[in-house]
């Protein structure tokens, strides 16, 4: 048992010893300890180095507000968690903890030279110093800042752990299981509705955990707590969640709870959930987050050993740990006296209570006298001594001018209390200034929510319990024997004889912001508290200003010369405490990050060695390399095989929409630029869709199944937006039309068969359709059977060859594909992927929406005026096509390009100019949209949008590249079989 562990105190199990290491050194703690409490039990206060000045730091608090004692927990490769508060990390056998932001070690830190030169690091230091020369940023400043101002280590490997995310619902969500939260749950549990009670700590109880001897309704608090939690655990409608932090409070009572499942477990198994994000929708939210004690801002208030009075009380009451042998108490609030008494009653010497105030409550003076504690009124600590741990302080009495050096190995301070408004603030609840508390407290709610207990400004256990019971719908008034919580005095500036420029009085411990910095910011003209915050970085560290915001506000308001309530509070933002990316990700990593949609034929492609490419959510077969082939070789072979004999292609990803109803043709007339009324049943037509702005939005072949039924196809990536576009117009602009839309993309597997032997291949498998060229011409469709299953068979071609698109119900797709592929061996059938599809269509000059168009290309620009009806009175986009800009001469137009060197394949996206020798920036005429090697033509081909392109036929243009300039001739964008004779295979 270590010297600082007090037998009989705390809730830890002293009989269960736990071994852990801190910076490689072995320590022993006991079951129930945090890293901080265990280190303190070993007499070790030094736990970290500060962010900017690398000053040695110990714990300031005992919980989630802790700004100083940040550690990295090392569980092996990829499993190092940085910036964990030592005050909240429970120890377990074998825990490996490391301090941060120090080099080479915590006791001797090279970075501490920043401290010696701190006069060069005032507020706004980064903004002022790292301005120029500009070239220094990458090489000097940024590496310097990154090196010096680091917190924990960044991960160096994939995180192998598993995280979860779930949705949940309840009528009442209670956040914080201190006396207020527990009383609320007890009352609310009675009505049978679903209640969730969460607490961030391992044990529920809040302040009751460190004050077990206080009596609630005549029962010891410890006993009351045990009975209450047992009753709640038994109630079926109550869910109790410990080690769970409410990190964010969003609209309509949507609250994110981050649960740490195995953070306290030794050798937690990889592959089991480590943290879970609970996304809770609550009818009502009861916030019982408690309050946080405020530090006093005095010179040297950051020396290890200086901490909040309530923290010392918690270390003693909850962990049975004394924070020192001889403790000075420095306060401006009554509550520190009870802390001092608790510490004294555990046989720790109190060097003195130094109170800023001149008048002190009689019962407190009496309590001190009884314990032989000296109280120095109207005094302040003006200096602290000691290098890595405080060993003395200087007490200054302004009235007499006396300065006394007082030996102590710890200083407990209390500057009053701040209600914890973080989640209330997330919910956009109103706040108001409470002059008595010198703090902001909740005002009108913005959601169905209520704050109770200390976070509502009602301090003390009895007050919390009664407020809790009321919030839960009960009426009970609780009685306790606690000392009156009392009041305090808030001072922006403590008495000191030292010039303020000589002092290091910290406000924000984590970001190293001092009183001086805040005053400097104000004197430099930053009057808004939001500007002061950003300029000084006060409250912007991972602790979100939990201990610093009110002090900073107090100092700033004095410096600005405005009352504090006029200065306003800065906004708290989620997350309440640092939350891992794992928690936010939940299950959604790797294969669950986003769905990968695969066609029914995809397994065949995978088994046959396809290379894949993503297209939207889909993965599509890109090309089918044979052994030793690269993409270029594979695509050249696939193109040739298709043009020579037969290619088979999986087009299942094409979007499909069934447009049905007596007004179907009318609706199609409005949605597409083409005319549809005269398209005969079983006819097909290429459809071009505009948005109302007149630009090309999508395209695809449409088949008319019946007078009142169209089978519409869209581009693969365009399916969702086209469906939305159509639904929008149908529901909101044309609701009088009797027509309905059904997405059928996934109903059909689509197998495209192209090549001179296409008809021969399918003939033996087709029933009920006459395939002869005369009775089944190009751009028509038939219904019948193929391979024994129903089909919608389209005779269409996106390659220029004789082609069929075989639509079959999706779950028969693979069977039909495999049957045709087997039969196709007779014709050297070649499976091809999207790359070959692109080459074959480019050879024919067919556009790809989104590749050859970019949302600023009209049908006319694309050379497709033929697809725009001149006769229709109305279609979406018609009026815009008459806008002056869209009918202007010289717009960018789609043309073909043939490079002078036929072997040269242009880069897609390359810019095109007239004169390559003009000065930079050059006048760009346009850019290359599609470019390929055409095996069939034995040369390269390209499409491009070029200013006034239609009038440039035969011109030679230049494409400047980093190493050369490529010359290319403007041609019509149809490179292969311009007359379309290859479709007519008999």
């Amino acid at each position, binding site marked *: 048992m270590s010297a600082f562990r007090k037998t009989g105190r705390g809730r830890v199990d002293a009989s269960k010893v736990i071994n852990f290491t801190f910076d490689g050194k072995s320590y022993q703690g006991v079951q129930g300890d945090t890293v901080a409490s265990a280190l303190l039990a070993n007499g070790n206060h030094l736990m970290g180095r500060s962010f900017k000045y690398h000053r040695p730091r110990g714990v300031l608090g005992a919980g989630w507000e802790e700004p100083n004692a940040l550690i990295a927990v090392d569980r092996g490769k990829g499993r190092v968690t940085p910036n964990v508060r030592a005050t909240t990390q429970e120890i377990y056998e074998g825990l490996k903890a490391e301090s941060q932001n120090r080099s080479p070690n915590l006791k001797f830190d090279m970075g501490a030279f920043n401290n010696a030169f701190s006069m060069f690091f005032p507020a706004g230091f980064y903004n002022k110093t790292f301005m120029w020369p500009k070239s220094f940023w990458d090489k000097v400043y940024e590496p310097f800042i990154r090196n010096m101002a680091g917190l924990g280590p960044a991960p160096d490997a994939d995180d192998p752990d598993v995280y979860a995310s779930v949705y949940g*619902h309840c009528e009442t969500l209670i956040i914080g299981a201190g006396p207020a939260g527990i009383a609320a749950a007890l009352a609310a549990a009675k009505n049978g509705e679903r209640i969730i009670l969460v607490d961030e700590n391992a044990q529920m109880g809040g302040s009751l955990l460190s004050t077990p001897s206080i009596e609630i309704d005549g029962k010891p608090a410890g006993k009351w707590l045990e009975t209450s939690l047992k009753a709640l655990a038994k109630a079926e409608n109550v869910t109790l969640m410990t080690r769970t932090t409410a990190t964010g409070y969003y609209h309509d009572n949507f609250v994110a709870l981050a649960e740490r499942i195995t953070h306290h477990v030794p050798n937690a198994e990889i592959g089991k959930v480590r943290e879970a994000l609970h996304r809770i929708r609550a009818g009502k939210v009861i916030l019982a987050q408690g309050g946080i004690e405020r530090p006093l801002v005095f010179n040297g208030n950051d020396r290890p050993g200086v901490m909040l009075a309530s923290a010392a009380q918690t270390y003693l009451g909850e962990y049975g740990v004394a924070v020192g042998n001889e403790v000075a108490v420095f306060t401006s609030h009554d509550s520190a006296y009870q802390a001092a008494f608790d510490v004294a009653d555990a046989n720790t010497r109190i060097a003195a209570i130094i109170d800023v105030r001149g008048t002190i409550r009689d019962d407190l003076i009496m309590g001190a006298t009884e314990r032989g504690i000296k109280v120095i009124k109207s005094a302040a600590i003006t200096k602290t001594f000691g290098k890595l741990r405080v060993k003395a302080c200087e007490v200054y009495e302004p009235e007499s001018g006396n300065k006394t050096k007082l030996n102590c190995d710890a200083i407990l301070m209390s500057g009053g209390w701040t209600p914890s408004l973080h989640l209330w603030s997330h919910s956009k609840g109103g706040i108001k200034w409470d002059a008595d508390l010198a703090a902001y407290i909740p005002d009108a709610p913005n959601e169905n929510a209520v704050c109770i207990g200390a976070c509502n400004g009602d301090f003390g256990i009895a007050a919390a319990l009664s407020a809790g019971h009321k919030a839960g719908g009960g009426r009970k008034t609780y009685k306790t024997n606690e000392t009156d919580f009392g009041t305090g005095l808030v001072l922006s500036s403590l008495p000191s004889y030292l010039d303020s420029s000589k002092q290091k009085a910290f406000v924000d411990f984590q970001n190293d912001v001092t009183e001086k910095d805040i005053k400097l910011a104000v004197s430099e003209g930053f009057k808004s508290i939001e500007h002061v915050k950003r300029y000084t970085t006060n409250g912007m560290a991972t602790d979100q200003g939990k201990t610093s915001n009110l002090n900073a506000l107090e100092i700033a308001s004095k410096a600005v010369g405005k009352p504090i309530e006029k200065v306003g509070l800065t906004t708290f933002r989620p997350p309440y405490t640092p939350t891992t990316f794992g928690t936010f990700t939940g299950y959604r990593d790797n294969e669950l990050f986003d*769905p990968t949609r*695969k066609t029914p034929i995809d397994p065949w492609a995978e088994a046959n060695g396809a290379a894949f490419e993503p297209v939207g959510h889909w993965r599509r077969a890109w090309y089918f390399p044979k052994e030793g082939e690269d993409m270029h070789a594979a695509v050249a072979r696939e193109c040739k095989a298709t043009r020579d004999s037969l290619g088979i292609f999986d087009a299942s990803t094409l979007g499909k929409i069934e447009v049905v*109803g*007596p007004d179907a043709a009318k609706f199609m007339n409005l949605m597409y630029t083409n005319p549809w009324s005269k398209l005969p049943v079983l006819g097909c037509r290429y459809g071009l869709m505009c948005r109302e702005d007149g630009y090309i939005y999508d395209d695809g072949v449409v088949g008319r199944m019946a007078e009142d039924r169209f089978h519409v196809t869209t581009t693969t990536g365009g399916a969702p937006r086209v469906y939305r576009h159509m639904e929008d117009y149908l529901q909101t602009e044309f609701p009088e039309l009797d027509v*309905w839309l*059904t997405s059928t993309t*996934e109903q059909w597997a689509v197998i495209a068969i192209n090549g001179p032997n296409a008809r021969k291949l399918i003939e033996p498998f087709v029933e009920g359709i006459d395939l002869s060229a005369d009775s089944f011409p190009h751009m028509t469709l038939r219904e019948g059977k193929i391979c024994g299953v129903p089909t919608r068979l389209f005779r269409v071609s996106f390659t220029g060859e004789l082609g069929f698109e075989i639509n079959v119900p999706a779950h028969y797709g693979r069977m039909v594909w495999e049957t045709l592929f087997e039969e196709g061996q007779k014709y050297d059938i070649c499976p091809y992927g999207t790359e070959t599809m692109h080459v074959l269509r480019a050879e024919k000059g067919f556009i790809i929406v989104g590749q050859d168009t970019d949302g600023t290309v009209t049908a006319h620009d694309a050379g497709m005026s033929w697809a725009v009806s001149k006769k229709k009175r109305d279609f979406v986009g018609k009026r815009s096509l008459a806008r002056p800009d869209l009918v202007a001469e010289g717009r960018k137009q789609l043309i073909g390009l043939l490079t002078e060197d036929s072997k040269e394949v242009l880069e897609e996206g390359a810019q095109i100019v007239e004169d390559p020798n003009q000065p930079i920036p050059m006048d760009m005429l346009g850019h290359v949209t599609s470019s390929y090697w055409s095996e069939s033509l034995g040369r390269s081909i390209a499409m491009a949008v070029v200013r006034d392109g239609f009038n440039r036929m035969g011109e030679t243009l230049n494409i400047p590249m980093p190493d050369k300039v490529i010359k290319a001739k403007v041609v019509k964008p149809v490179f292969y079989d311009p007359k379309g004779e290859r479709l007519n295979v008999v």
Partner: protein
Amino acid sequence: MLFDQAIDIPECLNAEALTVSLMGEKARYSLRLKSADVSAIKKASGLKLPAKIMGASHGKDVTCAKLGPDEWIVIADPVQKPKLDKALAKVSKDFTCSVTDISHRNVGFGITGADAAKLINVGCPLDLSLEKFPVGKAVRTLFESASILLIRTDEQSFHMECWRSFGPYLRDFFARVVTTR
């Protein structure tokens, strides 16, 4: 193999408190009807089309659910298909409406057991308590990135459908949840 949904259910999804099964072949139709015609169409087709949005009638061979103000889905055992094809062709002819065969568009999962609602709530944001989501309720909603159709068929059983290419995503999600808990 003729009919192939290309989804295999791993062993881990066959436990006592939770069983996920892949439904076999089904006949499915999307019906878009004018409200004035619904009762006549019910009579003509024999389909128990629910009158209320988000309602479902869950029979032995045929399930009907109303997903939108004028939209129903019919999910039936494939042996019913010839009969339904015929009946619905007649409806199509006699009424101003839309009937579309979507038999192969979806795949269906049966999710059963004490933990069924819990599993669905991993990715579905709706309140699945019996009070808010009683037996016979049917909605189109989301499971994370996948649009789903969800019908509660009894206290501990759900019928979930999605478009076929989202099936493996849901299956993988379910398997991850079960194997990592």
